[in-house]
Structures are given as C-alpha cells and as structure tokens.
C-alpha cells in the first residue's frame, strides 16, 4: 500500500477522527489494480465506526476478494465535517483501500440496514458524482446496487438503484460478475443490456424493468415486468450450507474504536422462533446452524489473526444454538488462556446461561437482560413471544441468587391489539421482579437496592411479518402510552428501584412510512436530502420538520403509509418478492394473533409449514424431517 491519501494532511488535521478516511488497516485487502477486471465499492451508508461493525459487509468483502478478478474495496459516509469540505473543495468520494474515486469503479454496492440511512444513500451518490436516479446515469457510471435488510421492501429507494439484490449475498454475485466480464469481453456490454441479463439471475431485482400502477386510493394496482423474459417474482437467495460458506477469519482490524470493537463469530443464521413482529425472524428463515467444529476452528483463527481482546457470538437467539454448552466450554477455556473476554448477546435467561455469564463477566457490574416485548401474557401471546411470567420470575430469581441486582427489560409500545391495561402491565411486571429481589435476598446480603431498567421502543410494522398489515399511531398517542407507563411506574410500591427510558416517537413514524412505502416516496427522499437531510439515524442531525415538509411538498400522506391498517386483500408494494415464507402463512398468523387464537410452535418443536422448506436446508430438515 502506498502512502498516498485522497485527503491532504491539512484536511485530515481539520476533521474529527481522520483515521476514518485513511484505510491501510491490518488485514485490509491489497490488490494490484492492473490484475483485476472488476472493481467493487462496498458501502455502508453511515459513519466508519458504524459501517465497520457490520459483519455482512465483512463476509462479502472476504468472498469477493477471494476471486482473483475482483477487487472489493470499502467506502463509508463522510461525517458532516468532511462532507462540507468535500463539497466546498470538489473532492470526489473515494474508497479506503486504494483511495481512488468511487466513480471509477464498476459496481457500487450499498447495504441498507435501517431506513434512517436513506438520505445517506444520496450523499454517497452525490459526493461520488453519480446521478441520484438510475434513469439519469451514463454508460461510464458504476452499476449502483443495494442489498441488506431494508431491501425486503426496496420500493421507496428503488429509483436510486440500478439493481437490488434480494437475500443473502453469498449466492448470486458470481453470476453477476461472470455476466459482466463476458459482456465486457465480447463487446456486448451496455448498461441496459447488462441490467436486462442481470434481471434473470436469481434474487436480482432491476427496478427499471417493472411498471407499477396505482388505484385511486393510492394503493398498488399492478406490478408487472416490462418484458416477457423478466421474472414476475424475485426469490430471496439463501446459502444453505453455512458451515462451508465464506467467513472472514482474517477480518479488518480498525485503528479507531468502532461500535463492534471485537471479533465477531456468526454461529447460526435465522431464528427458530416465530415472533410475529420480527422481520429478521421471517426473512432469515430457515434457521441454519454452523457446525461446531467449524466454529471452533474459526474462533481460533480470528483470535490469532486479529489479537482482539473480546469475542462476541452473533445470532438472533444464541440460546437456540443446539450445541451451545459444548461450544462455550471450548471457548471459555480458549479465551481464558488468551485473556480474551467473551460477550454473549441474545441469551435466554436460565440456569445454564447464568452459570456461563458468571464465568465470563463481573456479576456485580453487569446486568441481565430480558426482552419480553409486551407486559401482559395476553399480548405476549399475540406477538408469539413464547416467554411466560414464570420464565421471567425464575430467571430473575436465579440471577438475584447468583449475585446480580441489575435487570434490563425491553418492551414495545403500540403493538397490535394493545390496550392501556397491557401498557400498565409493563411497570407492574417490573415491580413484581423488584419485589422478588427483596423477597429473595436477605437484607444483609444485598448490595444496595436492585435496579430494574425498563426500556421501550415504539413498534414499527415491517414487510414480510404477520404484522405487516397493522396500523401505527400518531406521535401524540405513542407519547401518551409512554406517559401512562411512567405514571403507572411511579405508583408502584418499589418505584425507587425502577427506571424508564423510551425512544423518540418522530423517528418511529418515519421508519414506519419508509418500511412499508412504495415508489412514490423516492421524490420525498430526494427532496429532503436536497434540503439538508443527512445522518437521520443520528438524533443531533435528524429533523422531523424537514421530513414533514418534504412529505407535504411531494404529496406523501403519513396516515396512508403508517397509520392505516391494511386489508389482506390489498396488493402490497413488496408482494413481488418471495422470501420463502408464504403470504398465506403470514395471513394466518395475522388472523391468529388478532383473534387471540394462541401461539405457533417454534421450528424445532413442530414445523408450522411457513414454506421455507423449499430452500432444502436448515432446521426444516433436521431431526424430524419435513412435516
């Protein structure tokens, strides 16, 4: 790596954390540009510290760079201080590895992990000197593509992308690159011709090849491919054999402290639980575990290659990994030798996990976490959480006896069918846990009072969940619920042991609009961006008024997109995507929830016939075979 940086020393000395922009980190891939045919710029549209913490990007970076003819580099959103300098001084956005302009790449891939990054997509394009809309781009511009969690409804941002990858990145990049190479070599390449060919690759959606019409009430009337050879539906891509998939055991080590400042080991993908609000729980189906020998090998390699002093296990629900006890025994022994900490998110609180936690963390300083999501058993059943009061009480009692006195509770407000009684049940449940502490631990053994921390977010209905038809509430109603919770908490016997935080309501509304929006939203996103919207995921830069103004100017009705409950007859903007989970399954789950007809089994206990067995792998084919 040469020492030539895209930014001058002067600029680097003027901006906050210049190391965000210098690349050159250990384990970053260095290739000779003359030896590669395809240059791919992989972008996470947020600041470096956030983007570097995303494991998906690291997996794709590893996978692409294994191909000798492809060079994948990284790019992140310049922080507002540098953003301004780049605009003032006409400095084009550059990649970290070779510090060269993004416009010179063959592909720009942007991962969309949360809706509030949408304004940053436009920043990336704008600073790169690439037209914001796919329809305005030239032959020389990179092919701009999207992937990631938000692409399960790509419509609000469809106009900004040439193609969108639906599903897991491990499967379809090879054909995309091979077609590109072939067309470049035989001289048949043009943007239009390439996109047409790409649209036939499994999982690839080319928005410009589809026409959407709307009913008078604004709902989608039709969604049709413009040509006969373009597929009508796009099937989510899934890697069935996770153990043999690409995984970065030599991940890039950032110079500066990033959000996920540790080694990350993905132990499984997907979740056997069927929480009805959870998008990841549906879109990552079927649940696939990595085999334990692969995990052991990868853990050792990552620690050897990085020198990180902490390792974290990544999955939607670690406790559901079948051989977790055996793997943790191995990991604890290995990490003790190396003085490496183990971080265990998403553990169910039970005797096993408490005993593990007491080995790897300081009980006095740490807290235990429950995510009951709803306060009453009725509502927990509606959302199919499968967590009972007894689970919470037993877990808490064992934790208190084990020396913990801090408990964190995560709940959602605004869930379908929620009543004021359900809201009040949150502080009441918390109070009974506090009570349990004082009943369980004798006075002389207590280290001060216990600390029950309640945290709520407002529920956002997401595509491809049983709750995708649900309505949301105006900000005032969310705040009323939050205040009701707080007032009820203050009336509790152990109120001094309880504390409460809630998220902003305004951001929730915007997330709701974008999550279930259609193509009409792209005008509003562009308008907001051109009027200053940037880093909306950061409260210091977010302005609700700016977005309200953009919606008004572009005729976007918040009640239409967010508050309205949809009927199952309605054609949804994302219906053209097939995630494996059938619409019929989602409809049944929605009815079962609202009619309070009980919970649905997890995938391991009994197959609920969601449709994902068609992928031919994972939990669907374990133990009991197909149902």
């Amino acid at each position, binding site marked *: 790596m040469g020492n030539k940086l895209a930014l001058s020393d002067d600029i680097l000395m003027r901006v906050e954390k210049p190391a965000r922009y210098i690349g050159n980190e250990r384990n970053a891939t260095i290739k000779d540009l003359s030896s590669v045919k395809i240059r791919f710029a992989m972008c996470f549209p947020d600041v470096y510290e956030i983007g570097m913490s995303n494991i998906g990007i690291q997996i794709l970076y590893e996978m692409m760079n294994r191909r000798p003819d492809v060079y994948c580099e990284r790019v992140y959103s310049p922080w507002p201080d540098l953003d301004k300098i780049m605009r003032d001084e006409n400095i084009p956005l550059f990649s970290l590895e070779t510090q060269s302009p993004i416009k010179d790449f063959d592909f720009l891939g942007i991962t969309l992990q949360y809706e509030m990054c949408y304004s940053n997509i436009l920043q990336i394009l704008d600073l790169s000197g690439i037209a914001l809309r796919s329809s305005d781009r030239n032959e020389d511009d990179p092919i701009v593509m999207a992937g990631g969690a938000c692409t399960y409804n790509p419509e609000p941002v469809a106009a900004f992308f040439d193609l969108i990858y639906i599903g897991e990145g491990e499967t379809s990049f090879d054909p995309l690159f091979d077609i590109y190479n072939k067309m470049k070599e035989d001289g048949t390449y043009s943007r239009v011709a390439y996109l047409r060919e790409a649209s036939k690759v499994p999982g690839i959606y080319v928005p410009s090849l589809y026409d959407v019409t709307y009913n008078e009430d604004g709902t989608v009337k039709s969604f049709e491919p413009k040509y006969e050879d373009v597929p009508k539906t796009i099937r989510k891509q899934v890697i069935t054999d996770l153990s043999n998939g690409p995984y970065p055991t030599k991940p890039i080590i950032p110079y500066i402290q990033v959000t996920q400042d540790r080694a990350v080991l993905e132990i499984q993908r997907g979740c056997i639980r069927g929480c009805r609000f959870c998008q990841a729980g549906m879109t990552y189906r079927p649940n696939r575990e990595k085999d334990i020998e692969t995990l052991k090998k990868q853990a050792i390699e990552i620690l050897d290659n990085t020198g990180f002093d902490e390792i974290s296990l990544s999955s939607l629900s670690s406790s559901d990994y079948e051989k977790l006890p055996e793997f943790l025994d191995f990991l604890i022994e290995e990490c003790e030798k*190396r003085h490496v900490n183990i971080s265990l998110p998403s553990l169910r609180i039970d005797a096993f996990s408490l005993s593990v936690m007491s080995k790897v963390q*300081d009980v006095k300083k740490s807290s235990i976490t429950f995510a009951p999501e709803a306060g009453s058993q009725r509502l927990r059943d509606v959302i199919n959480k499968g967590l009972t009061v007894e689970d919470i009480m037993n877990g808490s009692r064992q934790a208190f006896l084990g020396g913990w006195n801090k408990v964190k509770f995560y709940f959602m407000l605004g869930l379908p069918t929620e009543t004021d009684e359900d809201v009040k049940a949150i502080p009441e449940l918390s109070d009974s846990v506090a009570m349990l502490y004082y009943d369980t631990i004798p006075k002389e053994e207590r280290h001060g009072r216990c600390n029950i921390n309640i945290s709520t977010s407002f529920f956002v209905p997401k595509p491809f969940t049983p709750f995708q038809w649900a309505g949301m509430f105006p900000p005032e109603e969310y705040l009323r619920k939050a205040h009701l919770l707080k007032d009820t908490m203050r009336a509790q016997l152990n109120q001094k042991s309880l504390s409460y935080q809630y998220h902003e309501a305004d951001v929730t509304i915007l997330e709701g609009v974008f999550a279930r929006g259609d193509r009409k939203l792209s005008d509003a996103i562009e308008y907001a961006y051109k009027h200053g919207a940037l880093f909306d995921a950061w409260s210091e830069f977010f302005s609700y008024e700016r977005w309200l103004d953009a919606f008004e100017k572009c005729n976007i009705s918040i009640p239409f997109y967010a508050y309205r409950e949809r009927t199952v007859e309605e054609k949804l903007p994302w219906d053209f995507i097939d995630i494996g989970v059938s619409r019929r399954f989602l409809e049944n789950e929605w009815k079962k929830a609202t009619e309070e007809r009980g919970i649905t089994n997890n995938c391991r206990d009994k197959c609920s016939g969601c449709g994902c067995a068609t992928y031919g792998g994972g939990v669907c084919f374990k133990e009991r075979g197909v149902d």
Partner: protein
Amino acid sequence: MRVRLKFSKHGPIRFIGHLDTLRYFQKAIARAKVPVKYSEGFHPHQLLSFAMPLSVGVESDGEYLDMELLSSVSFDDEKRFLDGIIKDLNDTMDEGIKILSAKVVPEGKKNAMASVSAASYQVWYKNHKVEDPDEFSEKIMEIINSNEPIIVTKKTKKSEKEIDLKPHILTFSCGVSTFDETMELRFDYFMMLSAGSENNIKPQLLMDAIHKRLGMDPEEYPIVIRRNDLFMTDDEGAIVPLINDLSE
C-alpha cells in the same frame, strides 16, 4: 521483567491518536504472542506504558513503550531473546509502525513515562513558505542566542501561566537542507526541548513565539513537525537516549 521498545511511526498511521496507538499495540502483541503480563480481574489488560503521547498527524523515529513480561520468562541470551520479540512484532505489523530496538529495563529503574525529560524534533515549513531560508535562519538564531527571555502563555487544563521558554530550549540548530518526496529542497530546523510531565514544551509553542517576535502571522506559516527521539536525564545529570543507557 520489563522490556522497553523503541519504535517509529510513519505514513497514514500517523493520523491515529495516542489511545488508538495503544490499542494497536495491544492487538499486535497478542498476535505476536509476546509473553506479556496481564492485569487481574474480569477485564484483564496488558501491562503497557508509553513514554509520551504523540500528537495526531505527527511522524516519529523515536517512540518508546515499556511492556511488563510474565515473571516466568527467562533467557540465556538477552540479545537473541529481544531480537525474537522485535521480529515477531514486526512480522505482524506492516502498517507504518516499526520496532527499532529493545532493551531489558533493570529492576528499580523508572518506567518510560516517568523517565522522559527531553524530546528532539525536526521542523520545516509546509509548502516551502519561507522564501529566503538563510536570512530567516539568521533571525531565528538571533532570538535563540540572545539573552532575552521568550515569554509565552502556556495553557494547561487547569490554568494559564507565563513561562520563559529559554531554559527549555536544550539545543537548536538550523540550516540543514534535505530533499523532500517531491525532490524539492527543504530547510529543516532541529531542536531539543524539555519534555515529560513537568515541563512539556511543544515545538509549535516555540515556533509560534518566534513568529510572533518576527511579526509573522503563524497562520501564514504552517509548520510540519517530526519527533526524532526521546531522552532522559541520567544519574550524572546528562541527557541520554531513553533506550541506550539502561544498564549501570
């Protein structure tokens, strides 16, 4: 056993700050499997101590770091043992930090940070701002060599105080020209200034005072600073390099 390392820092990595340099070393030491000692407790950390923080953006040829090694570590041949550590570390670091030398610190000697008493720097003007370096250097040397004090206001976290820089200028010379990367002739100024916890004088402070005395706007004359080495005061009061004279 305590081992002192001397290292250089060049290239893009100069834009990472002191704490991030510490974190960089922690990982490199773990990768190289240096038998370093860890603190007790749930979040053990390596027992490391840097001599003196280096400002963001500044390159250096003389940075120091003390590592406490496991008490079980022993060796027959000190040089071979230390060369092994240097090699293991350099093999796993190629981002612009390089270990230059290593030495075992005798029992009872102060750690690197407590030892530092002076630092040497090399300073030049960015973009060859000074038109006639010879004439300019003469003016600077007049200020340095005169008996007049150089009074500046030094800001610390807690207070502002007026100090005379003169006693803290241990050496100062100019007139050495080198070719820079673009093969243009560059004029360098070399200085050794008091450093460490008591009186830490940064070259920027001195150069600002000189510019002020000469009626120059410091904003107009941006300088580039490189740290060359760090020094300590030995038992006889002599200024010696931090790694050269550790033995009796």
